[in-house]
Structure formats: structure tokens, C-alpha cells
């Protein structure tokens, strides 16, 4: 297993290089750029722009720029944000904490809620509570995120609540951690969790239900039942374990998707994640920030994939990794 992990990490390096080329190419393809925008501003002298251009080697051939950028990353320097006049890595770190927290919490909540519900709906296929659960799941799938956010906030507002957007009430944002601040956060957290996690929950619930139904019809389950194993053992030791298997390869994909899906939710709900930061940087063509964030999501994906594969091998001994 250790061999496998090491090999995967070695393999990841060329993939990351490939991604860096792609990311760089996408940015180069964009018409204009931050400096071009700056040139259109009559306030800024041409020589200022040329100075910046020289300073960041933007007057050099594309491959020199690429190597320079790549060299910087290897040394841990992700470049410089034109917009904020600050190093990119600092800006990302400021927002990393909440991003990881929200993402991890969303994944956790999604799985903790979706897997049992998926099992339940598979076992009680035609019961009324199953229908209700399916319907809630469908509602999550069938309603656009921003509309869910807007409707939730509207409902809170109409019912006289004050927790409309953000992670804290204004007075707690810069207050030190306390029990009251924690409670305040819980009061705010449920809206973003629902908005970001609803369709993920619905997806996993449906997949779990479908997979479990598949597995329950497999021969080995019938054999296990025929052997006289307790239904509880058949279900949990054999059926559920095998049904979760395909979901795990799905889990590896969830991390980068979360970055995407939190962009809209974070803009609508004003959450301090890297989502709105990426959005702003894209609109303003702050290229080093965009490239750093895209690379970061690539690394997240690789870590996620690796974890999923290790998990997959662990739960499903049929898979061989030689």
C-alpha cells in the first residue's frame, strides 16, 4: 500500500505539470489582461504600465513567463496580486481557513445525512416516509442554489429573523471566540450548509439507494441469506459496504466541485471563502491569483483522489493495485 501511495505521488507530478500548462494557456487565451485594463485608464501613464510589465517579465516570450511562474511556485512564491498589491499566497491564506472549514463541514454533513437516508429509502421503497424523503431530495436537485438561498433568506426575514447571510452577526465577526460566538455561528451556518450541500446530499442519497438496490439483487447476497445469516448482518456487512464502494470514487471529485459551487453561494450569502476572491480576480484579470487558485484546486483534487483510492482499496478488497 505504501508503495502504491508513493507511486501515486510520483505520478501526480507530471499531471500537475500538465495542469500548470493548461492553466497558464487558459489565462493567456483570455483577451486583454490586467495591464491592458490599466492602459485604458487615462490616469495611469504608459511608463507605469511598462514598468510593471518589465517587473513581472510580461514583456518576455510566453515560455519565459511560464518558466518564471513555475520556478516561483517551486520556491513557494505564487506571484503577486496586481489588484491588491500583495503576494498571492498571503491573500489565499487569509481565506483558506473558512473555505476548508465550510467544505469539510459540508462534505461531512452531506454524507452523514445522505447515506442513512439512501439506505432507508432503498429498504422502504414504497413507504410514505420514503416518498417524502425522496421529494425533499428532489427539491434540492430541482431548485437552483441561488434561488434556494434567496428563498431561505426571504423566509427568515418574513418570520422576523436576523440571520440573513454571513457567518456571524456583525458584533461577533471580530470578537474573540466564546460560547456566544459559537452559538451565533451555528445560527448562521445552517443556511450555507443547506444551500451548498442540498444537491450533493440528494445526489448521494439517490446513488446510495440505487447502488444498494443493485447490490441487494446480487447472487452473493442471496447466498448469504440462504446460508441463514441474520438480515442485519447481510445488510450492513455485505450489502451496504459494497454499495458505498462506487460512491467513494465520487467523493474524490467533491473537493474541487465544492470550490465551484461555493462561489455562487458565497457571493449570494457573503461568506469569506476563496470563492468570491476567485470571482473578483477573474473579472479583474488578476492573473497570478487566478492561476494560483486553479492550481490549488488541482492539488486538492489529487489529494482527494488519492484518499478516495486508498479508501476504495480498503473497503473493497477485490481491487488490486499492483
Amino acid at each position, binding site marked *: 500500500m505504501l508503495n502504491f501511495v508513493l507511486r501515486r505521488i510520483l505520478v501526480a507530478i507530471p499531471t500537475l505539470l500538465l495542469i500548470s500548462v493548461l492553466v497558464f494557456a487558459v489565462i493567456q487565451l483570455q483577451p486583454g489582461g490586467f495591464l491592458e485594463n490599466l492602459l485604458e485608464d487615462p490616469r495611469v501613464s504608459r511608463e507605469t504600465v511598462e514598468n510593471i510589465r518589465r517587473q513581472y517579465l510580461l514583456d518576455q516570450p510566453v515560455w519565459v513567463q511560464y518558466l518564471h511562474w513555475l520556478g516561483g511556485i517551486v520556491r513557494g512564491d505564487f506571484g503577486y496580486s496586481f489588484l491588491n498589491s500583495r503576494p498571492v499566497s498571503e491573500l489565499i491564506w487569509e481565506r483558506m481557513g473558512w473555505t476548508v472549514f465550510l467544505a469539510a463541514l459540508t462534505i461531512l454533513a452531506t454524507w452523514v445525512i445522505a447515506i442513512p437516508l439512501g439506505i432507508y429509502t432503498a429498504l422502504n421503497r414504497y413507504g410514505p416516509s420514503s416518498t417524502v424523503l425522496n421529494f425533499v431530495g428532489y427539491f434540492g436537485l*430541482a431548485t437552483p442554489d441561488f434561488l434556494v438561498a434567496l428563498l431561505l433568506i426571504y423566509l427568515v426575514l418574513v418570520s422576523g429573523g436576523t440571520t440573513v447571510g454571513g457567518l456571524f452577526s456583525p458584533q461577533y465577526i471580530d470578537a474573540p471566540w466564546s460560547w456566544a460566538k459559537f452559538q451565533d455561528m451555528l445560527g448562521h451556518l445552517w443556511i450555507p450548509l443547506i444551500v451548498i450541500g442540498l444537491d450533493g446530499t440528494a445526489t448521494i442519497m*439517490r446513488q446510495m439507494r*440505487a447502488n444498494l438496490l443493485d447490490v441487494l439483487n446480487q447472487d452473493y447476497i442471496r447466498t448469504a441469506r440462504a446460508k441463514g445469516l441474520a438480515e442485519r448482518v447481510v445488510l450492513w456487512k455485505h450489502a451496504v459496504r459494497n454499495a458505498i464502494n462506487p460512491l467513494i470514487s465520487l467523493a474524490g471529485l467533491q473537493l*474541487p466541485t465544492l470550490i465551484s459551487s461555493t462561489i455562487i453561494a458565497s457571493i449570494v450569502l457573503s461568506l469569506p471563502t476563496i470563492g468570491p476572491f476567485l470571482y473578483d480576480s477573474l473579472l479583474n484579470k488578476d492573473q497570478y491569483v*487566478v492561476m494560483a487558485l486553479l492550481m490549488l484546486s488541482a492539488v486538492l483534487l489529487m489529494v482527494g483522489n488519492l484518499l478516495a483510492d486508498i479508501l476504495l482499496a480498503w473497503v*473493497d478488497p477485490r481491487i488490486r493495485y499492483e
Partner: protein
Amino acid sequence: MDKRNNPLYLAWLRFLRSKPGVISGVVLLVLYVIALFAGFLAPYNLTVQHPDAIYQPPQRIYFFRDGRPVRPYVYQFKRERDPVTFISSYREDRSRPTPIRFFIAQGEPYRFLGLKTNWHLFGVPESEGYFFPLGTDQFGRCLFSRILVGSQVSLTVGVIGVLISFVIGILLGGISGYFGGRVDTLIQRTTEVLLSIPRLPILMALSTVIPASWPSTYVYLGIIGVLSFIGWAGLARVVRGQVLALREVDYVTAAVAQGASNLRIILRHIVPNLSSYLIVTATLALPGYIIGESALSFLGLGIKEPMASWGLLLKDAQNFQSLSLYPWLLTPGILIFISVLAYNFLGDALRDAADVRQRD
């Protein structure tokens, strides 16, 4: 061959047993038929504005007068504007009942199957007033007509998008998982690279590349193409994971041992085993495109005026003002909901029906 032994026929029988599935299938069929005849069913043209009927609420249809059934009619509205808040309020003008006419020719002509015509199923003559079954928007455009015409866009792009991404995804995912080795590595790396870039930024970047002078249909189809070209990668990965597991299943190893050809193994043993999974994924992916379209509109990257789609129409309802004053603008959202729901129920029913191992 005996009908009763035909697996397709048996699956069909099982499908008919599922009430939600059948109902959903019918609903979708109706929606697509409506989309086909949208120009005829809509009382007004997509873009025609009525400055004197801005934000008019839906008109109620009456079937009885003085307790007796009569030809369906509506009342015209009287508009009043609050001098302080500038809110337009409408009141039914009981002195002006207007009967609804059927098969009426008026307004701007629309195209249908190459014909140009201005026949509409129903409507109220322009000389007598208006009939807006679902109210009007900011410019006094008939929301009902706009929803019908918008369905042509919203209901078709999902199908196109899913088709493209499925063909690529199943093919490459299957090859990757079955053959393994170098092919697997290559395809895996490609999917990883594609998947490692969040979809939203790619779309945003592409939106700045697409020329502003393109007609909105091209822009939209272009973005759908991009969506599905990114979409296949995720599917390919999951298909690969399934094939990887199935490859180790006894009956496949047995088939390999018997010297069956690769193609035969893929088609006879692996694809049938994946079918239920693929159907669930397809039904999940289809509505994903409908939702995706509305998200694009939210970011201002989707369909543009003067075309219409449900997502674009819903954009008008995305503020508290509309929620509290003009709630009928949410109707396109209800239609998105219904169609997505119908696809999901249909997919579930098909999954259960197609499951060949279910027979006891």
C-alpha cells in the same frame, strides 16, 4: 419470439407498474409537445410589450356568470399607481368582462415547421383588452407566452448536452477501466487535468472569449458544448471505477477464460451491468443542464435578450422586490422544478424496470 419472454417488453410492463414514473413520462411528453407548438399555444409574441400593463398580476378565468355556465371570460384590469411608493396596483374592472376567443389570428407572425402564421389557440382581440394567464413582467410582456417559447430552449439543451457527454464519457471510461495499462493512464491523466479546473471559472473565462456579436443561440450552444465536454470526464471516471470492479467479478473472468472477445465482454457482460447505473446518471445529468442554464443566467452568461429561457425569465424574480410584490414571476422556477422532478422520477422508474436481475 414469445412476447412474454422479450426482456424489453417485460421491462415495459414493470415500468407501467410505477405510478410516479408513468405520470412523469406523461408530464415530460406534454411539456415537449407544448414546446413544439409554443408559438400556437402562446397568446402573444415573445417580445411584444404592453406599457399600460406593467407587472400585471395573472388574470382569473371565469366560467360562470350569475350562476350559469357561459363561455370562459376574464375581466380587464384597472391600473393605479401609488403616488408615494410608485407601486402599480391592479383591480378587476367588473364592468368589462371579456370573453376568451379560440383560434384567433392576430399579432406578429411566428414560424412553425417552416410556415409563417399568426394563428393562436386562444386570446382576446386587441380591441377588447388583454389576457395574461400568468401576468406580465417589467415591460408588460405576457409571462405565459414567454414561458412557452422559453421552454424550447430549456428543454432541448439538456438533451444535447447529455448526449455529447455520454457518448464521450462511456466510451473513454469503458476503455480506460477495461483495458487498464497505458491507455488507462493516459485517459486518467486527461480526465484528471480536465476535472482539476473548477467548471465555473472555465465558463467565466470562456464567456470573455466568445465574441459579443454572436447571436444568443450560438453563445448558448457554445457554452452547452463546453459544459458537456467538461462533463464527460466525471462520468468517465465513475464508469471506469465500475468497470474496474466488474472486471474482477466471476462471470467476467470466466468469460475471459473462455476466450470471449473484448467487444463481446464489454457489450454482453459489462454494459448490461452498468445500464441501471447509467440510466440513473443520465436522468440526474439531464436536469443538471436545466439547472446549469439558470445558474449561467444568474451570472449573466446564459441566453440573452431578446431570446428567452426559463433561467433568463427566473432572473427577473431574483430579488426581494419581486418575491414580495410580483410573486408570479417565480412561475418559471416552478416549471424548472417540475421538469427536473419529472426527469428524476422517470429515471427512477426506468432504473427499476430495466433491472433485469429483479425477477425473483
